[in-house]
């Protein structure tokens, strides 16, 4: 990533708008991801449970193993790419202190935990649904903070 080699990103006339665009798109991606998940898959434990295991009362079939694996596989790819680019930008634009390092670690650990918890919820036990839901919100909120904080530092640092 070329921007890791430029010394003063805030003063660079090309990198400043490019990174602004990346951060704005990342911000909207994170919001859109939660909205789409809310309507298609569920973000709260009750709705996730219905998607994964179906509901006899509402005549909803459980998700097939094949569909679940497709969703999981796609999610892993998108999360890793979004968080890789966001982390690299965040590291470069914010102060390299303990607080930011902690935020970076919690975001990446909770995102990985959400993916592992989702697979465990489907294959092992429904009790992992709560862990998935919590970690999903945690990494989304922290990633939003990382995007906003990077954007702020791009113009104010």
């Amino acid at each position: 990533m070329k921007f890791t080699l430029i010394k003063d990103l805030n003063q660079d006339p090309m990198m400043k708008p490019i990174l602004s665009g990346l951060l704005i798109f990342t911000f909207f991606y994170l919001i859109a991801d939660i909205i789409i998940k809310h309507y298609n898959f569920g973000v709260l434990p009750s709705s996730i449970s219905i998607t994964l295991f179906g509901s006899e009362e509402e005549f909803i079939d459980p998700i097939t193993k094949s569909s679940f694996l497709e969703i999981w596989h796609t999610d892993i790819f998108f999360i890793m790419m979004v968080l890789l680019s966001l982390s690299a930008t965040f590291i470069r634009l914010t102060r390299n202190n303990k607080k930011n390092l902690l935020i970076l670690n919690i975001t990446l650990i909770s995102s990985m935990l959400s993916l592992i918890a989702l697979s465990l919820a489907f294959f092992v036990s429904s009790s992992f649904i709560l862990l998935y839901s919590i970690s999903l919100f945690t990494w989304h909120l922290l990633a939003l903070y990382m995007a906003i904080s990077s954007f702020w530092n791009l113009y104010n640092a």
Partner: protein
Amino acid sequence: MLKSYKYTIIYFIGFSFLLLISATLLFEEKIGFSVKEVLDYYAGNESRFMMQKSALGLLKIILPHIFAFGLFTMVILHFLIFTQYKNTQKIIFLIYLVFITAILEMLSPFFTINGFEFFAYIKLASFFLFEALIVYISFLLFWSIIKD
């Protein structure tokens, strides 16, 4: 290299493993790991009520993978620039091998549906070789970070 960059690379390796696990489970669920199952999936099998895949159908399946394979491979390989293996003959060979394996993995089904049954073996071999190469690259990266 900054400490935070090292963390990011380690997490990326973790995500890569999850990606490999999900790909293996998906392959097993949809196709299967025997040559017969690969042939049935792509060339069809009347006794199992499986239709032969069309070229357009295959293209639809590999379309997102063309971009994803390219991006993922580029990202994981470019981390090697920050290691002591940078610009060595072994790594140059590895770079070519990973990209060629990825291309074979994606294109072999097109030969299979056109009667070249041998490409079912290529499909399986390239799938496992690609996974093994990613594990090997991850090991090189992890080892470099630990040693640094």
